[in-house]
């Protein structure tokens, strides 16, 4: 028996599927494609699949991860090819490798990066916004009210923010030299659709569209949802952002206080 870890994309077509329903999609697709997924023993066998951090309904992602147990060996490249043939449009497996480590993806996730497309209610230009964000981050603590199962409570989200960058969609081509400021094609395409007015009801002028890229704590220990970050910016940084789209661009695991890509060799090697 081997374990495989893979990375996949959840596109526009499938962004409204709940986490539980998505697991069913992968299970059924695996059956269609005769993938050798291992099943639990017992009266009610279920497939041995572990998915990373659940995405909210409506959020797209290019960096979802899952760990599957295989009952028979299968080369990662074959796994990717066979699976992609039987997955519904919108789900694409982009990378895979054997996971020989003991860790499981769900338990080890520590950070997630997002691109959040927003329209601004204020006339602020990009420089003003960046300045406001800088000031926001320079606060000693950032207290927000968080709704939990046991009622609302005040939380300091400062330690959960590991970086914020604000960019203008469509500006990427103009400064090709600065690769780091390029936005995910998911965001660029969506922004273009809004600008082309093909997404009805969300018409905005181009100079009011911004993309907030953020690296945030994620997982069971500490988790900051991008929606909450935006509402904190609106509450304390004198901004008026209206979220149009959220897209996850990365998911990271932690070992010995170091952050890794979940498919990093360090993480997947035998320990």
């Amino acid at each position, binding site marked *: 028996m081997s374990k495989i870890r893979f990375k996949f994309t959840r596109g526009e077509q499938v962004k*409204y599927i709940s986490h539980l329903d998505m697991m069913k999609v992968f299970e059924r697709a695996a059956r269609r494609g005769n993938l050798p997924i291992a099943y639990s023993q017992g*009266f009610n066998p279920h497939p041995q699949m572990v998915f990373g951090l659940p995405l909210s309904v409506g959020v797209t992602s290019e960096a979802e991860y899952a760990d599957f147990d295989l009952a028979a060996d299968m080369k990662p490249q074959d796994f990717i090819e066979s699976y992609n043939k039987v997955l519904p449009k919108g789900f694409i497996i982009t990378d895979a490798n054997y996971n020989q480590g003991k860790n499981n993806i769900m338990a080890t996730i520590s950070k997630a990066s997002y691109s959040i497309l927003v329209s601004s209610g204020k006339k602020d230009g990009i420089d003003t916004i960046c300045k406001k964000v800088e000031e926001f981050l320079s606060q000693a603590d950032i207290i927000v009210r968080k709704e939990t199962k046991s009622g609302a409570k005040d939380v300091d989200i400062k330690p959960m923010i590991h970086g914020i960058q604000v960019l203008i969609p469509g500006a990427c081509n103009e400064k090709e030299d600065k690769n780091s400021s390029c936005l995910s094609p998911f965001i660029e395409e969506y922004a273009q659709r809004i600008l082309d007015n093909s997404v009805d*009801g969300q018409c905005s002028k181009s100079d009011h569209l911004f993309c907030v890229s953020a690296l945030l704590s994620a997982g069971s220990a500490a988790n900051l949802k991008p929606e909450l970050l935006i509402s904190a910016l609106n509450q304390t940084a004198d901004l008026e952002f209206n979220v149009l789209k959220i897209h996850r661009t990365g998911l990271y695991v932690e070992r010995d206080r170091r952050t890794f890509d979940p498919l990093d060799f360090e993480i997947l090697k035998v320990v």
Partner: protein
Amino acid sequence: MTLKISDQILQSVEKPSRYIGNEWNSVHKDLKDIKARFAFCFPDVYEIGMSHLGMKILYHLLNDQKDIYCERVFAPWVDMEEKMRQNGIPLFSLESHTPVKEFDIVGFTLQYEMSYTNIVNMLDLSGIPIRSADRGKDHPFVCAGGPCAYNPEPLANIIDFFMMGEGEEIILEVMDAYMEWKDSGKDRTDFLDRIASIEGIYVPAFYKVEYNADGTIQRMVPQGNYPQKIKKRIIKDLNETYFPDRIIVPFMDIVHDRIMLELFRGCIRGCRFCQAGFIYRPVRERTPGKLLEYAKKLQENTGYEEISLTSLSTSDFESLGALTEGLIEEMEPKKVNLSLPSLRIDSFSLDLMEKAQKVRKSGLTFAPEAGTQRLRDVINKGVTEEDLIKSVTTAFGGGWNGVKLYFMLGLPTETNEDIEGIADLGNKVVSAYMSVPKEKRGKGLRVTISTSSFVPKPFTPFQWEAQDTMETLKEKQLLLKSKIKSKYISYNWHDPELSFLESVFARGDRRVGDVLISAWEKGSRFDSWGDHFKFNNWMEAFRDCGIDPAFYANRKRQEGEIFPWDHIDVGVTKKFLWKENQKAHDGDVTSNCRLDCSGCGAAAFGGGLCHE
């Protein structure tokens, strides 16, 4: 035109997956190759409609024709409807998000009477005039089929034409006629005229109803050279007809989220309250070999984890043993479960249960329908108390601990003794559980007794009977509730109000169609969804239209009365049904079709069990 539904709207409604489409095996076609577009409309939400086998069959059948494109349309839930109306979004198809109004033919499937207001609402949301008479050359044709179409009259002013019976052949004949007509450039009436000669097609506008002074029907007059009787269509040999080798795999949970394998059509039993038992005759089975082949292909093409055997009375399937063995052998290594619904008590065998259990244990449901042997004989439900107790004892011994028992209140000739008999039967099931040694039975016994209210249906021996008034039904529910004392038994019952309306529309004539539209105007839709059922709307609508609902629901009919559905020929004759009605009142049972032919008339179709 393709509509774009904004994310803002989709984010704001419950279960946006209902409106997305793109599921595995959904069909997407290039419009330039298409000559006719069919909108298959299910007048309820996605998760109900997607569970319907008939839609799955006809969807893929139509889409296997290269010049036809069939797309699905469901009723938007109330939150989505509100957004659509606010934003001027018309009702659209799931596949291409095309407005329904742009289709050539819009077809509704009629599965239950209380979905009718959703039909009106869906037409309105589409921008298609609700009444057939108001449609013109820019509108699609609106048709309907399905079990409720056997009494088409309540919808006669709304639907342009009905397709009677099984759809696999007739729907293609209609599509061919449509494509011919489309090229001819002739008017709307010309098309309806063309298809009126296809067997099984009923165009209500071509018939006039004349009434007697007492409100009953005098006669039905064809307005031209149209058939006096419209004969339903059947597929003579199910092994030769179309069955899809793939079905759509939804993204969200639907009611029946599994492969449905249709073993046979029709039912040998002839329970006297059951419309399905008569309208689907004659009994026609598929061969186990064919079914195994379908199951294998469907499983490979969908990846489903469960297969259920469907038909009106699965345990009456002649080769059930061979079929389940074959299925388990094929599916067990693939971790695919087999579920066996609607099993009859008398032929329920330990053997079969254990085989199904090998894969997975599923719940047990029994439908004795009535509390005493006397009443079970009246309704011709050939089940005895001994059968039931033997079956549940076996089941408890096999580790089952949950049993659901279904009954009806308000059956013809019912007395308090029959009602108390229901509680007694429940107690006996509890005793049966206690009689099984502790180490063999499952922990935590749950017995659920559910009662529905009897609704007399067209084409049954009880079509002449009066339904109990709502007051009487409520009294009966209270009586039963007071008789159930065991802590292991829970009791559920249906709202008599809903059954009352169902009764009006099941046996209604053309005049009740206005009530339907009026109730919708008052805001009624999703009537079968408890929260959205507004009984007062309906009572107001009856008053506004000058219609007495009791005339349809609570009136006992004379033998010779002409019914609104008498011009529909389902094979089973009115004479036979009356004979059965008389036998019911005498407490005489009729044997099942396999033991003895009782000459119901279905043999006229020349297929199935009648000719074996």
